[in-house]
């Protein structure tokens, strides 16, 4: 299980990356993170929303209430153009960290 600090630090790039795949809502985002990390990254459900709202306030994502197939209204989030730029920057930074550690641990570097 990932340490709390790492979970918090990776929340922004993870959310932006998931929303880059297409619009989504809270429950689906949590399921996706669980599935991608094989259960290693465990987000507390209720804590996801303050992060989503902060990203929305920063103009990186946008939201819209829409009716789902079940008829239930859900708030869908999607990436804004500023969010796309922020994701690019995040990607660069995380890959820099990954490659630096990779050199120390003799892991093949990843190109951007």
């Amino acid at each position, binding site marked *: 299980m990932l340490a709390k600090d790492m979970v918090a630090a990776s929340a922004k790039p993870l959310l932006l990356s998931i*929303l*880059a*795949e*297409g*619009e989504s*809502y*809270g*429950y689906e985002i949590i399921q996706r993170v669980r599935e991608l990390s094989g259960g290693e990254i465990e987000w*507390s*459900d*209720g*804590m996801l*929303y*303050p*992060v989503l*709202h*902060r990203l929305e*306030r920063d103009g990186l994502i*946008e*939201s*819209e*209430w829409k009716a789902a197939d079940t008829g*239930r*209204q*859900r*708030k*869908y*989030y*999607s*990436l*804004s*153009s500023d969010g*796309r730029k922020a994701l690019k920057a995040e990607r660069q930074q995380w890959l820099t960290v990954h490659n630096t550690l990779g050199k120390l641990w003799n892991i093949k570097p990843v190109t951007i």
Partner: protein
Amino acid sequence: MEHQARYNLDAALENWRAELAAQPNLTAEVRRELETHLRDTLAGFQQRGLSDEEAFWLARRRVGQPAQLGEEFFKANPLAVWRERLFWMAAALLTYFIWSNLAEMLSILVTNQIFNWLSPYRQAGLVSWLMQSSVISVGSQLVLRYVPLILAAIFVATGRIKWDALLRSFLGNRGLVAALCTGLILLHEWLMYNGYNFGRRHIHTTAEHVSGPVLFLNLAYNVFWPLVLTAVTVWLMPAPNRKSAQPT
């Protein structure tokens, strides 16, 4: 099975909703979003074959304690709650202002009509006193201005009006709110300024009698101030239907 049949999921959800509503740092929109999440989580557990009680217990635990959620949301955005409170204050002021103006016009109509009914009996002592005193006009103003507000408050408080859903659909449209409020404010002023004749008596501010500073003050109070209030209310409005950017 018997225990399962006894478990009241609706009541459990209602209790949870009440707990959430008791958190001052959670806005109505946040509560709505959290409830959607709880219901999604609940449905997920039910599909896995858990009983209603087990599914609700786990879903509630996953979403988090209401008090803890309140703290997290406050840390993330301390101004959000105040923005919502300011919105309701501005909306209440604006509603009262517009309603007062409409009630005033309506009361003039009613007063004129009562005067018309009473005129044939103006020689009678009581009728004469009623027509000379302000009882009818003040009474009709009080009844028309406050009784509907008190009734609406009672209906909302007792749950006879589902105001939440009504307001949500109305407040979901900023353009509609802005257009409706602006229209009513301008209509009222136009009627007042042109001394529109409701029956026999002209309303107090006719174009002939108002000019210069009085006209300016009149416009400032009746038009400028409520239009500013409308703009502030619309700006503070929660925007549940912001247009999403299309993901690529």
